[in-house]
């Protein structure tokens, strides 16, 4: 604190610190610094209208706007987390769950809905990154498996939007095994010849990228999304060299042959529907 700050009466200092713009009316684009009107940004699926930077979007919001308006019905809702290890770090796992539920309004990090996409019936799932970093524990694994079962039962394709730091440490080996469980569920879709489209969004790393997210019949990435097995920090610590520009970004993956295409969020409905119609031998609608 400088001598000048010391002589200012404390009341004024406090006032200056608490003064703020009304909650979230305007949002600054982290890529181009443009100041955006929140409602307009949301209408644009959280994509900056100025520079097309893809900001993160909540799972529920994403799904209801990916599916045809009014067509979505959530499934596998009643599945809730247990605490098989009675895990405790600096906080108890149970408390972390409650806090995440409070912040997000969701029960866990994966949401599954059925609905139609431009008339085509399908199941869509999305990770909620704000829920403990979109981490995959038993609930996420079970919900994903039920999504796949629903597809098999009703002969529908599956689309999953991933956004996750990986497996949920607080459930220990149970979490690791969700990688095997979700991969087995996708293997079943493959056997049944039902398409699985994986959309990798920012960020997708760890156990989720090393299981369900890279097993799509098509792997689609969102522009500039961070996608990789290990996080950049871990790699940096391991190899101790500066990482190349754009390393582990969607464009890097496309160049290295890891994803089929990069698709702008605003075009995903049309492009995914078009691919699914061809894979499933459905005619293009007349109009």
């Amino acid at each position, binding site marked *: 604190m400088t001598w000048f700050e010391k002589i200012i009466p404390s009341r004024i200092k406090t006032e200056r610190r608490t003064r703020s713009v009304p909650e979230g009316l305007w949002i600054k684009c982290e890529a181009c610094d443009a100041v955006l009107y929140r409602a307009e940004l949301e209408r644009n699926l959280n994509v900056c209208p100025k520079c097309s930077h893809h900001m993160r979007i909540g799972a529920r919001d994403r799904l209801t706007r990916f599916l045809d308006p009014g067509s979505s019905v959530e499934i596998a809702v*009643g*599945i*809730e*987390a*247990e605490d*098989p*290890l009675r*895990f*405790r*770090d*600096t906080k108890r796992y149970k408390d972390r769950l409650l806090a995440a539920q409070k912040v997000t309004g969701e029960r866990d990090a994966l949401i599954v809905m059925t609905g139609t996409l431009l008339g085509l019936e399908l199941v869509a799932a999305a990770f909620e990154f704000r829920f403990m970093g979109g981490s995959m*524990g*038993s*609930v996420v*694994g*079970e919900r994903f498996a039920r999504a796949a079962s629903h597809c098999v039962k009703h002969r529908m394709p599956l689309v999953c939007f991933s956004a996750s730091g990986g*497996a*949920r*440490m607080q*459930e*220990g*080996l*149970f*979490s*690791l*095994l*969700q*990688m*095997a*469980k979700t*991969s*087995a*569920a996708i*293997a079943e879709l*493959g*056997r049944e010849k039902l398409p699985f489209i994986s959309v990798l969004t920012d960020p997708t790393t*760890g*156990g989720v*990228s*090393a*299981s*369900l*997210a*890279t*097993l799509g019949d098509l792997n689609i990435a969102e522009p500039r999304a961070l996608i*990789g*097995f*290990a996080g950049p920090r*871990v*790699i940096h610590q*391991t*190899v101790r*060299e500066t*990482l*190349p520009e754009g*390393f*582990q970004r969607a464009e890097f993956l496309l160049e*290295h*042959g*890891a994803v089929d295409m990069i698709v702008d969020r605003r075009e995903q409905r049309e492009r995914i529907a078009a691919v699914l119609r061809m894979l499933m031998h459905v005619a293009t609608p007349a109009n």
Partner: protein
Amino acid sequence: MDLNFLDFEQPIAELEAKIEQLSYVGNDAEVNIAEEINRLRMKSRTLTKSIFSNLTSWQIAQLARHPQRPYTLDYVPLLFTEFQELHGDRMYADDAAIVGGPARLEGRPVMLIGHQKGRDTKERVRRNYGMPKPEGYRKALRLMKLAERYRLPVVTLIDTPGAYPGVGSEERNQSEAIARNLYEMATLSVPIVSCVIGEGGSGGALAIGVCDQLLMLQYSVYSVISPEGCASILWKSADKRELAAEAMGMTAERLAKLSLVDEVVPEPLGGAHREPLVMAERLRSALSRQVEVLCNQPLDTLLATRAQRLRSFGVYRDA
């Protein structure tokens, strides 16, 4: 013999040093020295028993990583009567962190796949400390497919700190290499028996660990992340690794209680590295028994049971 004692084994190390000193003196024909040596041996054994009956998770993790712990290729000549090592993923390279090939287990041909760490510095570097790159997992998958074609049961030995996180790994899509193995192993139409012989490090372990029967050696560990990694993320300090090891429940005993492991193979007193021959004998008998049982099952039963097993992973409430 230098057993390379761990810190919690220091009292045993001191006793053993005393015994060794005495045994040099022993040739001078004094009868009571032999007696004294025997007494100390007994004491050392009792002490080892008492220390090993009460190990913490972190101590077990240290044993699992013991520099003298037997690795896959140490077990191979003790478990199998024949082994032909096969190399390469046919696409990019041969990854020395994973070894494999057809082997004969009590007369029955099987496909062996295992992680391989190095013993000395040079070999450690060559084997990348047992951390496979994508080509390692793709070699493993190639061998599994070969096993499927010729109907050889697959035996995998797990011992890795984890899949290697590097620039090349990312360029060649480490995620996909691991995920593809999980996908293919879910429906591979031959029995798969896996055993964690040392470190079961996360996805890097699971990528050759989807199986019909999971075994663990008594002092091996299997976890979603290393105790150091868990501690540095959740406690913001790698020093809390002991707490993390305990909290994650990574030991064979704990995982067996959670019904995640089918069989725990007991180790000789003091750990597998003290008596590798005894360890190998126990492992051989456990593996061949498990393989035998699975080979007697009709294929559709085997695959249905595996699918059910994979589907049932996880603990949750269903309202």
